[in-house]
């Protein structure tokens, strides 16, 4: 996928002018927030569970190498295969190799952000393998030739009418008289088409919400059941997951699951939580004959031990973006790559370099709402600030901002000089703005006055007035 993160500002501008998108974003703002609030309020131990979830992941990250090894052993003991992929390219190559071995023409896919991260669909298509997305949202954006704009609601930027038009365009068998106005009829139409694909597919590819070290199990949570069909019907199941998805035990998973769906959609649990361990055994009535896991690093191991390690606790619930005023304003595509919102603002620079994605950690008001809802208690604003520190120390901060900041800091560090200078400046500004009380334009303050007036200062600074009051007393 083409990376447009460097053009964040232009992307944002376009998004702000996109009326249908803005309407769609209105739904994010309401629905998700209310549902999460209700679900968390209904569970008295919710905040304790968050602490617990954080501690479980912190423990894993401190011993990640050991848990990864233990996990891989269990997978192989169950008859599965583990592939280690250091880069996105490695992962793509490994997956294509499996496709070739199986002579695969069609692969069905469960929803997976990691396969977005490695750009798997385009790559497979280039190599004559047809990927078919089976999650409804993913299916819709695949029809549209787009990418997800949200990590759990990939098509949240699309409205119903657009989906109907896309279906009529691609599902040429459709009777023009068929009513597709209701979301449920759209869903059943998608189901009917996908049902056949499940049987055609040679390989099913899914992501994983968790990998359990004690059992070698991969876990996915879905609401449509598409993941189960994707991984059970084809002869081969390939799990693609990043290394930080590990949790030690089944018990740990059940604890984190209690905060995942509540934070994401406000459900107590997702409709389906599916555990898979190795290929089908003799006693199993169905399941894949072959089971592969591709474990992707792609820059994550270099986050370990850095100020960004906490980010690896993320369970991709999407709560941070659901509560982010910047995401609400511009939507997910403006961020220019796979991961949007606050989690993307921290993760994207880690994975692709802050030189290409410097806007992301800067485009935050630090309102802190993301951190306040993150089930894994990830200090997102703090880590965005760490990215700004890296940019500043590497001289990546724009020159004008640096210069302005330098001049300001020079005065801020010298109170006497500062007070003398500001006393004069405020007296002048106060006089100029006195009658109206505000300025509608101001040199050097165009960023402010483009959209809002600048309230005028009262005139004499507090320090000047206080000094007078003291001498008078």
């Amino acid at each position: 996928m083409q990376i447009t993160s460097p053009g964040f500002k232009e992307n944002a501008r376009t998004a702000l002018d996109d009326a249908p998108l803005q309407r769609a974003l209105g739904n994010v703002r309401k629905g998700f927030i209310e549902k999460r609030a209700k679900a968390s309020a209904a569970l008295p131990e919710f905040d304790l569970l968050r602490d617990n979830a954080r501690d479980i992941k912190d423990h894993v990250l401190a011993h990640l190498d050991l848990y990864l090894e233990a996990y891989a052993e269990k997978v192989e003991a169950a008859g599965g295969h583990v592939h280690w992929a250091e880069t996105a390219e490695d992962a793509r190559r490994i997956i294509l190799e499996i496709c070739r071995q199986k002579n695969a023409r069609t692969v069905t896919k469960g929803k997976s952000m990691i396969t977005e991260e490695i750009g798997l669909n385009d790559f497979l298509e280039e190599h004559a393998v047809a990927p078919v997305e089976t999650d409804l949202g993913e299916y819709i954006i695949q029809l549209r030739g787009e990418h997800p704009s949200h990590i759990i609601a990939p098509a949240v930027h699309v409205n119903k009418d657009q989906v109907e038009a896309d279906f009529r365009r691609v599902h040429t068998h459709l009777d023009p008289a068929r009513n597709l106005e209701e979301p449920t009829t759209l869903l059943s139409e998608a189901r009917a088409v996908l049902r056949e694909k499940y049987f055609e597919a040679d390989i099913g590819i899914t992501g994983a919400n968790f990998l359990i070290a004690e059992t070698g199990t991969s876990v996915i949570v879905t609401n449509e059941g598409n993941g189960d069909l994707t991984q059970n019907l084809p002869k081969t199941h390939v799990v693609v997951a990043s290394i930080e998805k590990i949790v030690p035990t089944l018990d740990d998973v059940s604890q984190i699951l209690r905060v995942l769906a509540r934070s994401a959609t406000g459900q107590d649990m997702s409709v389906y939580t599916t555990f898979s361990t190795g290929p089908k055994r003799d006693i199993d009535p169905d399941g894949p004959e072959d089971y592969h896991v591709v474990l992707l690093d792609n820059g994550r191991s270099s986050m370990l031990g850095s100020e960004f390690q906490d980010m690896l606790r993320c369970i991709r619930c999407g709560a941070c973006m659901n509560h982010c005023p910047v995401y609400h304003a511009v939507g997910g595509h403006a961020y220019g790559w796979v991961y949007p919102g606050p989690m993307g603002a921290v993760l994207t620079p880690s994975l692709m370099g802050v030189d290409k994605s410097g806007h992301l950690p800067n485009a935050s008001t630090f309102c802190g709402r993301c951190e306040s809802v993150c089930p894994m208690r990830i200090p997102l604003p703090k880590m965005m600030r760490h990215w700004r520190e890296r940019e500043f120390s590497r001289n990546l901060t724009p020159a004008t901002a640096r210069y302005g900041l330098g001049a300001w800091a020079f005065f801020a560090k010298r109170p006497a000089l500062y007070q003398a200078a500001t006393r004069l400046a405020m007296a002048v500004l106060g006089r100029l703005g006195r009658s109206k009380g505000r300025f509608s334009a101001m040199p050097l303050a165009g960023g402010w006055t483009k959209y809002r007036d600048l309230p005028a200062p009262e005139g004499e600074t507090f320090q000047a007035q206080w000094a007078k009051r003291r001498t008078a007393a």
Partner: protein
Amino acid sequence: MTSSAPQDPPLADNQGGGAPSRPKVGLFVTCLVDLFRPSVGFAAVKLMEDAGCTVEVPAAQTCCGQPAFNSGDRDDTRAIAASVIRAFEGYDYVVAPSGSCAGMLKKHYVELFEDDPAMKQRAEAFSARVFELVSFLTDVLGVSSVDARFEGTATYHDSCSGLRELGIQSQPRKLLATVDGLKLSEMRDSDVCCGFGGTFCVKYPDISNKIVGEKTRTIAETGADVLLAGDLGCLMNMAGKLKREGTAIEVRHVAEVLAGMTDKPAIGGGRR
């Protein structure tokens, strides 16, 4: 103004246990109040003096350092923080009429001195004595009502840092409820950011404008005559937008109303 026993004992003071009988408070004015709206500073002084404090204003203060801190400039932030800590040693409390600046002083100074144990210790002692104005009145001094009058309907915006870093939400509402003549009409999503975000609003003006536009819509829906909040940055942002939209809603810092000092023109308002 009436006081009852404080609900929570003060976190720390130099006398060892219990609030000093006449606490000595160093007012951290904040740069925006100093430069743009000194009335807020005087309202803060009045509120604390009425509650029995001795208030002083150290001259060696400029800004809390957030512009540098949030731009990734640690060295300048550290220098500013060190001089603030020095200027405010010797006070029982350090109080700021801003949740954002108080949050900076209270929640972020310590982490600046991770590599300097002696300074870190001073920063910890300092941070423990820092409070935001309204929560200082209610939670530390035990103030439960104010002696002020304001005729009209107000709506209150919860500024982000005060709300999420310091837990300020009920305190201003509790005191506003005791202002004679004032009716509070809550806005939807009062806890959602106004789009100010310090330098954010000039670095990303298009996005900031979208966010503040949502905010002014929810403000207008309340039918309030006056918008109140505890942070001048947010207030200037919202006032600037309301003025640009041509709305008649006045904008004031909550301390002005609590202190009964609303004779000056409102923020962004001309002479009457």
